[in-house]
């Protein structure tokens, strides 16, 4: 029984890894995202439901649920904890989150995935999964071993009663956004500042996108393409009110064909609400 359970868990992880790897590599048009029912809650006992999905159109529940078991919650003081168990449905997964402390919380999900191949007895084998599984599965005597990794981070933010800036301390791993303006206080027409880092270092001259949701009800996409300055920072003149998908990938070039051996790709995406003034 224990063995079976372990296998099931591994399988689940592999499936998630597959999905995220595809997304991060730009191999699929489907985007994963997490979104709170509200990003600024004023209540005596603040709570929020977080939805997660992988969708074709932003932010429709049109393709698959996003498995959120590995999501983490950073509280206003910067303390991290695992998210409560989410409910998985066909098109979305959901989790209720209590917000006991006043301030801004960060919800984040990180995945590190490996794509690889090797030759054994003249036969080519392909692999997708975690780094540990790759190390385990490559047999002794394999030749032409090739692998590439993708590091993907998905985030959103919620505030209970009073916004704060204590949850944004970067981990120094992969691509990260450090909000310089509180991301739950975004108002159309105002300016928000952000900084992007790669392994903790500022990411200068890095293009990124802001894509509004509800494209289904509008038609035109309205993607905003922006770029960071020499300090890895950018000022965003906040566009019309909507939910926005902020997306960055490094290196910026779209990959053509299979990834080169040893290549590393990074992506950062966040769901942000811009409200009317």
């Amino acid at each position: 029984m224990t063995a079976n359970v372990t296998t099931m868990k591994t399988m689940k992880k592999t499936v998630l890894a597959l999905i995220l790897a595809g997304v991060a590599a730009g191999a699929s048009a489907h985007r994963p995202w997490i979104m709170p029912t509200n990003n600024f809650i004023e209540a005596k006992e603040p709570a929020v439901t977080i939805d997660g999905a992988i969708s074709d159109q932003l932010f429709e529940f049109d393709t698959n649920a996003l498995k959120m078991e590995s999501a983490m919650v950073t509280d206003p003081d910067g303390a991290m904890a695992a998210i409560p168990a989410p409910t998985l449905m066909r098109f979305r997964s959901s989790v209720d989150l209590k917000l006991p402390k006043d301030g801004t919380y960060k919800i984040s999900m990180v995945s590190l995935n490996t794509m690889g191949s090797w030759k054994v007895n003249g036969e080519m084998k392909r692999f997708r999964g975690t780094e540990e599984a790759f190390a385990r599965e490559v047999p002794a005597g394999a030749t032409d071993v090739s692998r590439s990794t993708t590091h993907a981070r998905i985030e959103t933010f919620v505030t209970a009663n009073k916004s704060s800036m204590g949850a944004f301390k970067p981990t120094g791993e992969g691509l990260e956004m450090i909000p310089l303006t509180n991301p739950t206080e975004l108002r159309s027409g105002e300016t928000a500042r952000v900084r992007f880092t790669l392994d903790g270092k500022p990411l200068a001259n890095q293009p990124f996108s802001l894509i509004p949701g509800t494209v289904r009800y509008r038609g035109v996409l309205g993607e905003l393409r922006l770029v960071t300055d020499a300090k890895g920072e950018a000022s965003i003149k906040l566009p019309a009110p909507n939910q926005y998908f902020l997306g960055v990938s490094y290196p910026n070039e779209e990959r053509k064909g299979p990834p080169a051996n040893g290549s590393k790709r990074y992506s950062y995406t966040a769901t942000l609400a811009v409200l009317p003034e």
Partner: protein
Amino acid sequence: MKLSHSLVLTLPVLSGWATAADLSVKFEIPQLNVAEYHRPYVAMWIERADQSVAANLAVLYDLKKKDNAGAKWLKDMRTWWRKAGRDMTAMDGISGATRAAGEQTMSFGPAKTGFDKLPAGDYKLVVEAARESGGRELVKVPFTWPAKGGKETASAAGKEELGNVALTITP
């Protein structure tokens, strides 16, 4: 000398045939600065005043995918799909490959589309573009058939997925 003489003789005949009746559409696919770009699927048709489809002109989609897998996203051209595509069993003579960003021209003779047989009245040329993980846009160009006084030109422009769309009808 002999060659140029025969050319002079042939040319009027050729051009007379080419202008028998022609409907040509010049449309612009804008270059977009986006994170993920795929060429748009494009559908073109002629609509009657009551918004029903009078003639399908073209459906441009990803023909290179194995087993016609590109047809899966034809439904993303929502308006065309709802009005015509959904009920089509074959797209013989109207399907074509996607086009690159830039100005594109397509010409439709009467044999293929039968537009010259349309009853006299007000029509619209409709061009719809839909891009994978992108947007969708419709541009409508009104015109009258048959054109008064020979050649008719009309145009309209999109905002994002389509630029200028110009229609030229030579009766």
